[in-house]
């Protein structure tokens, strides 16, 4: 592997950190939309209404999820940045403590103290390098680049839209309950596909990863359906308003 390849690899790792938003967005877009479409189809049996409802839910859901992602990532980033600043102040004010802290961290990773001492002494000559190593090794604050709120929000929105649009597609093509069945089948297939994609990124068995995603998502949907049955059993007078 060349040095350029290492640098490229780093960028790939950072971009793959967005897998969380991608999986979350696609899964949530799929499940929430297919559930909504099933309800609307059952209630109205009108493809236009189903499509308009689906598209509205898709865009509003994407905005909501992207906002939530941005705010949560930003909150995490702000706390992360604060910890970085505090670590910097600590290293400035208490250089002996910082040096001893880094020495201990290197020792805990299995490096003999004599060698750890040489490394820390060397690092102390370059303030910035020492500081970054101190922040990363002593406080575990090494992944700042991965936490990008805006990018996370955009990936979340795009993933949600992609996930939510798939179950709507059949209603553009065919009518009635067949469209719904196709919608559910496409959603299931997409969940499996997302699992396969995750397996590819993580270098895990593809079929197993796909099946795992599929099983968890379907189990979650089934559990939700079960809760609905339980509620209906205890409150039989409650009916879902149609339209």
């Amino acid at each position, binding site marked *: 592997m060349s040095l350029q390849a290492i640098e490229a690899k780093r960028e790939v790792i950072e971009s793959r950190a967005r897998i969380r938003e991608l999986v979350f967005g696609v899964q949530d877009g799929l499940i929430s939309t297919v559930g909504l479409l099933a309800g609307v189809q059952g209630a109205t049996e009108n493809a236009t209404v189903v499509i308009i409802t689906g598209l509205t839910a898709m865009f509003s859901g994407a905005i909501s999820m992207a906002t939530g992602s941005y705010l949560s990532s930003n909150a995490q980033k702000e706390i992360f940045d604060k910890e970085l600043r505090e670590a910097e102040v600590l290293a400035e004010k208490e250089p*002996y403590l910082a040096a*001893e802290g880094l*020495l201990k961290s290197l020792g805990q990773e299995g490096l003999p*103290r*004599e060698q750890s*001492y040489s490394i*820390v002494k060397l690092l102390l000559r370059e303030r910035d390098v020492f500081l970054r190593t101190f922040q990363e090794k002593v406080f575990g604050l090494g992944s700042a680049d991965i936490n990008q709120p805006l990018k996370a929000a955009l990936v979340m929105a795009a993933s949600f839209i992609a996930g939510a649009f798939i179950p709507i597609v059949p209603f553009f093509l065919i009518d009635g309950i067949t469209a719904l069945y196709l919608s559910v089948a496409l959603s299931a297939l997409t969940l499996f596909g997302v699992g396969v994609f995750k397996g590819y990124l993580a270098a895990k068995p593809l079929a197993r990863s796909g099946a795992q995603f599929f099983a968890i998502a379907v189990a979650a949907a089934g559990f939700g359906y079960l809760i609905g049955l339980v509620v209906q059993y205890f409150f039989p007078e409650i009916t879902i308003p149609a339209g």
Partner: protein
Amino acid sequence: MVMLGKKAPGFSLKGVLQGKVSDFSLEWYKGKWLVLFFYPADFTFICPTEVTGFSKFAREFRAEQAEILGVSVDSIDSHRKWAEELGGVQYPLLSDETKTVSRAYGVLDEQEGVCLRATAIINPFGDVTYLVISHANVGRSVEETLRVLKALRTERLCPSDWKPGEPTGDLKLKY
């Protein structure tokens, strides 16, 4: 556990001085004052300030008929390299790898398995006349140790912050 005014626990440890390894025993220091200082570890960042501090003042201690011994649980090889790293140390660094001496003096941090920052001054009769242990975060003052040694050698009552050359209190004076 060391008790002030009681006999210091005897020891015989290997130590390094000017790159040479020898045995060092408490017995050999009878008739001299001995500053025995324990420190946590070689190749750290607070300890060298003390080790080199004592080294810089070694001549002043000798002028007071006192010898200095540094003790930690590190190996002889570690001490040798550490002394080289520090540009030479003017007194022996003893290796208490078995931790028996540190334990006998009550200055072993059992949890960390290293010595505490403890300093004992032993008089020419082998009695402990001064014992101080400070938190691992805080390095000791070598000049304070020297001041206490000089005060002890007057065999008189010395008031707080007494400095060599200043009048001491009368031996019979009761405060």
